[in-house]
């Protein structure tokens, strides 16, 4: 859907998708374990000329170049971390679909736990406040006089004898 809505957008701007496929047969590495690593890495990397597409999904020629580059680094013996570092050094943080935790992305990463924690804290605080208020009111309103208690007992007893179950 997003692609379709995105195309509603992009067609106004004036570029359409290029009719090439994402991962093509000739790109696949012989070693299945390495290929699997390449695919996993590709899903975390952005195709920089596309709208929020990973290079694994993208049909753009640039994405193909990047996929080949990732595979090249993997066959050269790089670890996943080294491949990522290499790409970031070359293309900047923009290439990562999951930004690293840094000073300028701190708010992005912390908002979810902060919202959850803050919300829970707020709820707890409000609950306590209302309970205290209710307690204060309750002391005045809810305590029955001994006469009332006796009347209540009588009423309950009468009701119970009316409707034996």
């Amino acid at each position, binding site marked *: 859907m997003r692609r379709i*809505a995105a195309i509603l957008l992009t067609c106004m701007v004036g570029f359409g998708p290029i009719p090439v496929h994402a991962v093509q047969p000739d790109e696949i590495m012989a070693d299945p374990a390495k290929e699997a690593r390449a695919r996993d890495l590709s899903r975390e990397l*952005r195709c920089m000329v596309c709208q929020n597409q990973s290079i694994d999904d993208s049909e753009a020629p640039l994405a193909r170049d990047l996929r080949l580059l990732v595979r090249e680094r993997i066959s050269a013996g790089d670890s996943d971390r080294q491949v990522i570092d290499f790409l970031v050094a070359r293309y*900047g943080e923009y290439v990562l679909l999951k930004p690293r935790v840094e000073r300028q992305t701190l708010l992005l990463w912390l908002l979810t736990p902060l919202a959850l924690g803050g919300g829970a804290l707020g709820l707890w605080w409000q609950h306590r406040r209302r309970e205290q208020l209710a307690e204060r009111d309750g002391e005045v309103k809810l305590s029955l006089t001994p006469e009332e208690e006796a009347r209540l007992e009588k009423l309950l007893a009468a009701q119970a004898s009316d409707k034996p179950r």
Partner: protein
Amino acid sequence: MIAEFGHYALVLALALALIQSTVPVIGAQLRDPALMNVARSTALAQLLFVAISFGALVMLHVLSDFSVANVYENSHSLKPLIYKITGVWGNHEGSMLLWVSILALFGGLVAAFGNNLPLSLRANALAVQGWVSTAFYLFILLTSNPFVRLAVPPIEGRDLNPILQDPGLAVHPPMLYLGYVGFSISFSFAIAALIEGRIDAAWARWVRPWTLMAWVFLTLGIAMGSYWAYYELGWGGWWFWDPVENASLMPWLAGTALLHSAVVMEKRNALKVWTVLLAILTFSLSLLGTFLVRSGVLTSVHAFATDPTRGVFILLILCIFIGGSLSLYAWRASSLKQGGLFAPISREGALVLNNLLLSTACATVFIGTLYPLGLEVLTGERISVGAPFFNLTFAPLFVPLLLALPFGPLMAWKRGDLLGAAQRLYAAGIAALIAIAVLWAWTRGGSTLAPLAIGLAVFVIAGALTDLAERMMLFRVPLSIALRRAFGLPRASWGTVFAHAGVGVALIGIVCESTWNTELITTLKPGDVARVAGYELKLDSINQRQGPNFGEMLAHFTVSEGGRTIGAMAPSKRSFTTRAMSTTEAALLSRGASQLYISLGDTAASGAIAVRIYHKPMVLLIWFGPVLMAFGGLLSLSDRRLRVGAPKPARAAHLQPAE
């Protein structure tokens, strides 16, 4: 003539909207019924004129009047009729006209069916509706007029983007807009309540059906869009965490929270202030979605900066409505009285937890979508926030939500019994453990998380069924009485069961698809056989075909399983000459809830063709779940409690379960 007619009708609708925005508010202040009733007639007349305007644009597209810029840019005389009609909203101007048409439709519905509302509430709510429509009529007329003529009419149009030439376009945007814009009703009611300074359980009862209706449409619209992307885009993805998708997910998350908090407000007169805030936020997020998609800001901040008229206009609308409504809220919310007390462990408490988690999820989507834009504007630095970020942050929010889900309906109002609810969920828990154990044994050495996630889904489904069984008093009374009780249950209770089970069903689909998806990328020549997940797919032939406005290359596959032919699949690639673009049409073959999926790549000089073949187990459940949810919503909508305006004692009281 038709274009001018449509244009004029739209201007008249604007004039009516201006009257609707002012007169009823004055009437409500003066307590003058005649002035307040103006809202009703203007809302209905506005609907009429917008319908005329929309009809005119449809007519122009059907007649292929290329002297109109919008038709020239998005249509072609050879385009099939259905795409001539759906192409009306397959572009910026037309989709905005659809937006205001649906807004007018909802206004008209409130005017026509809102006879049970207090006069002043209806007048104020329709006036707020009028403010929104005024803003958007101005937007269309000043920046995105679909009726602009070209000085020199061209002979042929530029055709609609081929990817949009699909039946999906007929359903997806209207559904999505019915959802987006439908939330304007709860917004208008919330603002009206703040203006009047009075809000009670009855308010929640009036607002709930409208919210529910919008939610049902939005759920179906999102699911439909996801399925469309799945089969149209050719690599089998169904959710991409793209900003445009997130724009529709945010109002859905907030709307789901709103539905649940409105329940508390209706039944227990509590959470009023929060419900009003959610109603405001939900529609604000719909407006934000409209801004994100329509302003071009997503393509790039720079694209927005080079042609900012439209973007700035919507941003202005956004600021006025969100800022205005939140200020009004801050000013008046303290005057709303808090209602019923409840213990943390109670039905209310469970619904509050639901709201906390859904709102946090919504905030996560919000920050993930807007953070890159904000950072770029502020520091010029560019970062990407994509699927890996959202997958990582969403799981910790949804696991507790789904774990708690079955407990909610089993809890009593005011003060619940957690242990009691847990005891009643024994069976559901055991079912989940069995599912986990079986899957673990079956997929030994595979993913450890997937069986756990499916166990969670089974727990949610079984929990929903437990709720039903409890209400029927199944196994505690004779079966015939239990069945009678089942029929006597309020439809809203059935709705809850279906909607909650739908969540579990969708989760099963998501987990199966993403864990046990098999993929084969290869090149095939006619006569070659590909083997995927126990199926054999033989490429019989490749041939060419001419469609109405495209040329097509079809590959014919015969699919067999264990030597027995089970079907044929014909994926194709279409090339559209007018736009010099091509699309891949994937072929799908359903086996139960699982699907085989083939899409074509490039042809090599040797005559071999690149193909991607997927086997996607249980993939259809991903969309069947939301359909169940929407069905639950519809059932709940048909509940007599919501149809009948004022609370009346139920006639069949002896069949009603004690809540």
